[in-house]
């Protein structure tokens, strides 16, 4: 039985890796197509039907490009940085549940049915795990910026360190309201607590703070100061080329997926299709594939939202960014926390 469980875990890990990396590749395609649509252009449409093979062409090109290590760079750290970025981005996804799971005997090969949950690891404090691992992601960026031995990279790295520490506070505080209502840090329990009503409705202020902070945490526009093109060339990955550059990009998109999945888990009701009413009496045991479909559809919508915002809003100035984080979002998150806990205690 133990071997079966280990086998299932390995298959799940492989599946998640494959799906996430494919998704990352197609997110870059989606970003280019959607930005083209928003700017009234066509975007990549030559490779394959509708340009759908473009990510494969890009990947091949990345592999065959020359891998440059700049002179004066700190070589071990320079090589380590993108790998660190990508690894922390991917392992954060391990605790995200996408459905209830199902019982199976593997076509009669097992004597008794075994339960297959739709997440890799069911950790008691799963939410804290995601926060902890994503907070490690900043090292990749900071290291990349520092070890490149370039002014632009260093500035990008420093900015990113300051930005991520600042916004992690409001991110964490905005989540506590959700934890207080759900009464658990297990993502599974948090989603299950949203059967009656999504947390988006009682926690709309928390959701706002969470979304803004996660845009800052993923270094996306309007908060992409660490890689602001007009001022810093490309920020922390200015000196990077070839596959290392690609790894930074993959880390960014994986972080986007994590942030979207987390938003869906915490505020958008996870696998419940509508804001009210749970499953309307559908037999979930039988149709176990429905929750993952709903969950993934929501994640896709969130990803689209991320891309949409990027091509709609202009970039903040650095002092504006810091002011927004400390003087607006942080007090709002505290206010949300106080109001939520007061309601829970007194009502």
């Amino acid at each position: 039985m133990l071997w079966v469980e280990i086998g299932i875990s390995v298959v799940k890990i492989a599946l998640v890796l494959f799906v996430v990396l494919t998704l990352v590749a197609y997110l870059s395609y989606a970003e280019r197509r959607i930005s083209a649509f928003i700017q009234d252009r066509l975007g990549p449409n030559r490779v394959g039907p509708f340009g759908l093979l473009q990510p494969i062409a890009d990947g091949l090109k990345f592999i065959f490009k020359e891998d440059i290590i700049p002179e004066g760079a700190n070589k071990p750290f320079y090589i380590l940085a993108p790998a660190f970025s990508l690894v922390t981005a991917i392992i954060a996804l391990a605790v995200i549940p996408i459905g209830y799971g199902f019982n199976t005997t593997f076509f009669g090969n097992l004597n008794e049915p075994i339960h297959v949950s739709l997440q890799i690891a069911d950790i008691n404090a799963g939410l804290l795990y995601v926060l902890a691992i994503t907070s490690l992601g900043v090292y990749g960026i900071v290291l990349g910026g520092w070890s490149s031995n370039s002014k632009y990279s260093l500035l990008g790295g420093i900015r990113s360190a300051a930005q991520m520490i600042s916004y992690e506070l409001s991110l964490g505080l905005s989540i506590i309201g959700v934890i207080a209502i759900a009464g658990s840090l297990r993502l599974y329990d948090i989603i299950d607590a949203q059967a009656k009503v999504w947390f988006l409705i009682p926690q709309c202020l928390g959701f706002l703070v969470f979304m803004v902070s996660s845009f800052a945490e993923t270094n996306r526009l309007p908060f992409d100061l660490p890689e602001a093109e007009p001022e810093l060339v490309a920020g922390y990955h200015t000196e990077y080329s070839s596959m290392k550059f690609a790894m930074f990009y993959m880390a960014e998109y994986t972080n986007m997926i994590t942030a979207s999945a987390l938003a869906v888990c915490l505020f958008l009701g996870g696998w419940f299709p509508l804001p009210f009413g749970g499953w309307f009496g559908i037999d979930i045991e039988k149709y176990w594939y429905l929750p993952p479909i709903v969950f993934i559809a929501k994640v896709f919508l969130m990803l689209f939202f991320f891309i949409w915002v990027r091509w709609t809003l202009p970039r903040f100035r650095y002092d504006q960014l810091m002011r927004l984080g400390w003087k607006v979002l942080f007090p709002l998150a505290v206010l949300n926390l106080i109001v939520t806990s007061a309601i829970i205690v007194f009502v």
Partner: protein
Amino acid sequence: METIIFYVFAATSVIGSLVLVSHKNPVASALSLVLTLFSTAVLFILLLAHFIALIQVLVYAGAIMVLFLFTVMFLNLRDESLRFDAVKVPVKLGILSLLLLISGYFIFIGFKKIPPLNTMVISHPEPFGTVEGVGEVLFSDYLLPFELTSVLIVVAILGVVVIAKRRFD
């Protein structure tokens, strides 16, 4: 299985701390400290302190060490620090052996006095070490110390603001 995990992460934490105290480059020192803190977090999980382990990664590795790294990069301390590391090797060895001797003495004395010698790592029932268990103790028996830490943090914030605002000229 647990034995292997213990030895692997004990070794990485010791290696990390050795690099921390011996490397010339402050950034390398900071990163090796992150390695040590992370391996200690894994050991905390082996000791069933799940909440502490996650807090360790979140606060220590995720915030405190980033602050260190930020300062090193902000001051742009490259390898210039190696020039003034002038303690001689015999002196270093002397200090190290003295420390070893003292702590060996205390370990020896301590192990004789503490009753649960040779105890294996016990597996406690579920709320032990989880958010629920720690939270319950923290907000009942240790409520006052917990509240007092907030005073400490306020004092630290005020101190930092005062230090940062002051101009020396």
